[in-house]
């Protein structure tokens, strides 16, 4: 399954300053669905190169990070349980405070 992952608002600094990642992922052994929870642990293992605490807290993203699945807040699609499909675009964005 191919996904496009985007990091913004400073989160890209955790993955060597690369904002857009086209990745191939597969459902974990023994399951058919690939959900956001699976994606978070995949991202932590494969993309986050430093300060993982700036991305995750517990089993979800840290406070202040918005997660968008196909341009839609993941709160509206089931958060960690959101099922991902081929060609989905997932955006992780850290909220900004500057002005």
């Amino acid at each position: 399954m191919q996904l496009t992952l985007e990091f913004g608002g400073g989160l890209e600094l955790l993955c060597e300053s690369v904002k857009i990642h086209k990745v191939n992922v597969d459902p974990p052994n023994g399951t058919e669905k690939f959900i956001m929870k699976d994606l978070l642990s995949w991202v932590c293992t494969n993309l986050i190169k430093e300060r993982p605490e700036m991305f995750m807290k517990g089993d979800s993203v840290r406070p202040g990070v918005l997660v968008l699945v196909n341009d839609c807040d993941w709160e509206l699609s089931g958060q960690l349980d959101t099922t991902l499909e081929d060609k989905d675009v997932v955006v992780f964005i850290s909220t900004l405070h500057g002005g």
Partner: protein
Amino acid sequence: MEINGGGGSAADVSRILSELETLKTVKSDIDRRISALEAQLRDTTNIEDKNDSVSNGSCPLISAVHSNINHDLTPDSVYRYSRHLLLPSFGVQGQSNLLKSSILVIGAGGLGSPALLYLAACGVGRLGIVDHDVVELNNMHRQVIHTEAYIGQPKVKSAAATCRSINSTIQIVEYQEALRTSNALEILSQYDIVVDATDNAPSRYMISDCCVVLGKPLVSGAALGLEGQLSIYNYNGGPCYRCLFPTPPPTSACQRCSDSGVLGVVPGIIGCLQALEAIKIAGAVGEPLSGRMLLFDALSARIRIVKIRGRSSQCEVCGENSAFTQQQFKNFDYEKFTQAPLSTLPVKLNLLPEDSRISSKEYKEKIDNGEAHVLVDVRPEHHFKIVSLPNSINIPLVSLEVRLPEISKALKEEEERKAGASLYVVCRRGNDSQRAVQCLQKMGFNSARDIIGGLESWGRDVDPNFPTY
């Protein structure tokens, strides 16, 4: 070469500066008096016009004979705002709504500058400006409402003067103070719409909560580096800031423009969009950006508009069971809640014992005495490129541990030149240098010491010509 050509001295410079300051103050006072008199004149003329039309009911004014006007725009307003009136989707009704509206802009910085320029120009009836800061030279690249003549003066004063010079027909209200829970209710309650153009997390929570308890729509923008974000909160059943971010982010995730940098035009774009959204709400036109968020990435020239969650019934401030009152707002400690200060003053850490630190003056003496030493500058590489002290070696804090051999090597070489080489660490303000010394001492560099206050103190106490940033 004699710099002051005509035999001038420091006393002359100081006299000229002081005279300039006095003249500027007098000038701004005169400007203010002119604006006030002009406004008074307008009011008087308006009243006379109205009296005329009432008392001379049997003998209507010429204009009333030749024109049929079904709105309250004055002839001057018709001309001034004609390009708005010509828009079918905005027109007389939109402009009339705008002239009757009041908008408060909190922050006259990178976001507030363009927002205020457009809000003043477009004819918002009453425009409030809140800011406690003064104009600085390093603001000028993005805070385009201010001019060099106002450096050192309050941003509110400077912004208000520019707004008045663009549109003398609207009311501008100045709040030269920091927004706090103690004054926020009183100030915000006097406006229809609030624009958050601040630069820190506690202010954002405080302003959103205040808008919820007062029932005001909030146009919220943010910008940093090469990215910007924009949304409208607490409007037409949409979410508030806390619905979206119930828990504050860790302080390490809250970067400031003064640390991370910002391309001037980026807050400019977001500030313009804030003005646009405020105008749409005030004019009652279009679809304001509520329940959606705009994400702007300048470098890739991408704007993404995403759908965000609606109002959360669980929200502690605007949710169904919330009992967040004005009194609770007043007592809420936003600095404690977000673990961050409302002001943007940089923090001063104190992590090391006194004998592990030296002042920039003491370091200067050590150079002058030719003392053997190695100076490690732990700032990021792009900071080091701006300016650095002679003979310092750049090893950024993040890569310190893996680059320890370079320090050992440098110390060894210095030791060969002259015995008893010591190790000093410097950074921009003296915080990271302390972290670095802690790390170095743990790794066996027991003599490592940091320069208190970093390059900022060098520029202040040793070499006034050393560039600060």
